[in-house]
């Protein structure tokens, strides 16, 4: 009798010991992309306080330097180059520009990385958020109280044709040919300026994920578990150590306390979100967001307050969500259907979200429309 009881207890005990649950820890840095980079993972001896964390964050710094429009990296050199000049890139910037070209064509220009002049003109470039950089002739005393001069809005349009940028690879060296187009306004010559803000964070997440895959395999840690998050716009999920799926919440773009309006269960996929809540200002009762309409040179007048896309590659998702917001509701819905995307569009005025995702939990009072 006693042996039977002991045997039963041991049989019950062993499975419980096995399913003790893995904890997650978060490693944060605020050093890159002017935002928080978070690496959430199951701690291993080597990752907690070890070289892997340092290497991961150092890699993020390298990616940022390669893609930044400021400093001395390849994109900054492209922007500083004269019209028609050939600029040498590195592998990261070449890879990013190659993908950017694909996305520019796929979205018919709704995603356009050649809008750097407008990003700066409207006051959304790092020059304004970081308080560094030289003044420009088109600066206003207070850009939140005065619209840009129309001559710049119209004048910069010929410098935004990203299809005219030529990329080439020659014996493991990479180049970008700047278009010949240049414009002179009030005696100052302007050329195309690239801004990879709409794809850079996603590309960084993808590169870090590849690094983690290789490192985990090399260290024998098994499958990568946890996720990478850049700001609140790029979330690259690996496997959930519980096997269930992370519960991902989407923030209501008009909630002052950042309440979620939707929640999904997901793993091994990238979430990308873009919208007018990230950077915007109000002028004359109108909201001006950082997402520029390449056809007009002005902040988009889209009714989409936020767009979220689920993809296998975070960089692709990053570019797509920017494009969807810029397209406006009707065109974005057509695009989502035509390309079979898993996406959520939130229209703030209607308090309605449009989605192709099948399973989710609605939080709050937003209404749903299934596409």
């Amino acid at each position: 009798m006693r042996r039977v009881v002991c045997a039963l207890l041991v049989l019950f005990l062993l499975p419980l010991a096995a399913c003790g649950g893995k904890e997650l820890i978060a490693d944060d840095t605020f050093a890159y992309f002017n935002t928080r980079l978070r690496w959430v993972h199951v701690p291993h001896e080597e990752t907690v306080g070890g070289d892997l964390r340092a290497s991961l964050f150092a890699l993020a710094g390298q990616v940022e330097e390669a893609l930044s429009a400021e400093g001395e990296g390849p994109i900054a050199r492209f922007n500083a180059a004269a019209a028609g000049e050939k600029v040498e890139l590195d592998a990261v910037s070449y890879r990013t520009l190659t993908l950017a070209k694909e996305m520019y064509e796929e979205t018919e220009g709704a995603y356009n990385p050649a809008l750097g002049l407008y990003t700066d003109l409207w006051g959304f470039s790092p020059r304004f958020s970081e308080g560094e950089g030289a003044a420009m002739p088109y600066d206003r005393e207070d850009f939140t109280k005065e619209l840009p001069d129309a001559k710049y809005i119209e004048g910069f349009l010929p410098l935004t044709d990203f299809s005219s940028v030529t990329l080439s690879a020659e014996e493991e060296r990479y180049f970008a040919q700047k278009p010949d187009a240049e414009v002179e306004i009030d005696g100052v010559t302007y050329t195309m300026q690239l801004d990879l803000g709409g794809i850079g964070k996603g590309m960084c997440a993808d590169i870090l994920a590849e690094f983690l895959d290789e490192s985990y395999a090399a260290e024998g840690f098994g499958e990568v578990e946890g996720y990478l998050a850049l700001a609140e716009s790029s979330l690259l999920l690996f496997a959930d150590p519980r096997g269930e799926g992370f519960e991902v919440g989407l923030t209501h773009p008009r909630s002052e306390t950042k309440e979620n309006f939707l929640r999904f269960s997901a793993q091994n996929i990238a979430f990308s979100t873009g919208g007018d809540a990230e950077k915007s200002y109000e002028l004359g009762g109108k909201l001006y967001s950082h997402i520029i309409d390449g056809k007009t040179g002005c902040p988009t007048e889209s009714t989409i307050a936020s767009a979220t896309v689920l993809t296998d590659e975070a960089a692709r998702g990053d570019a797509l969500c920017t494009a969807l917001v810029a397209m406006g509701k009707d065109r974005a819905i057509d695009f989502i259907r035509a390309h079979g995307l898993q996406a959520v569009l939130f229209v703030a005025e209607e308090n309605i979200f449009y989605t192709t995702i099948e399973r989710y939990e609605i939080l709050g009072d937003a209404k749903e429309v299934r596409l």
Partner: protein
Amino acid sequence: MNRLPDVKRGKAFRPLDLIFYALILALIAVLLLFTLWPSKGGAVGFSVKYEGKTVYTYRFEGGGEAVEGELTISETERDGRLLVRFSKGEEYNLVEFDPEGRTARVLDANCSARADCAHMPAIGESGTILCVPHALSVEPLTEDLFRPSL
């Protein structure tokens, strides 16, 4: 030898057996607790609420963020700590956030309660400071890492 009568007479559980079984059951209970209620992420800061609604959040890595509303909120820094004053009319509470000690406490207030919130101890990963007359509360901001948000 015929042990069968001895076995039949013997009790099912001797005192030592009972102690042993009790220990195993206790161990099962502890394991169940960790399985059913796994530890979540610790406090990442504090939230300040007025009448139950969040008016201010302070994160150890990221600083403070105010929400526009009925309260007037002003911040100053002193000796590496953030002092935040919440006021409405003549009423006020001065809250100190200590990023190194990971604590929050009310330094000063002019509320009328007998258990004056300014005399409550600092809170860390748990606990709440309540200022009932001013309808203000300060509590830890915890984060469940299995529930990220975009």
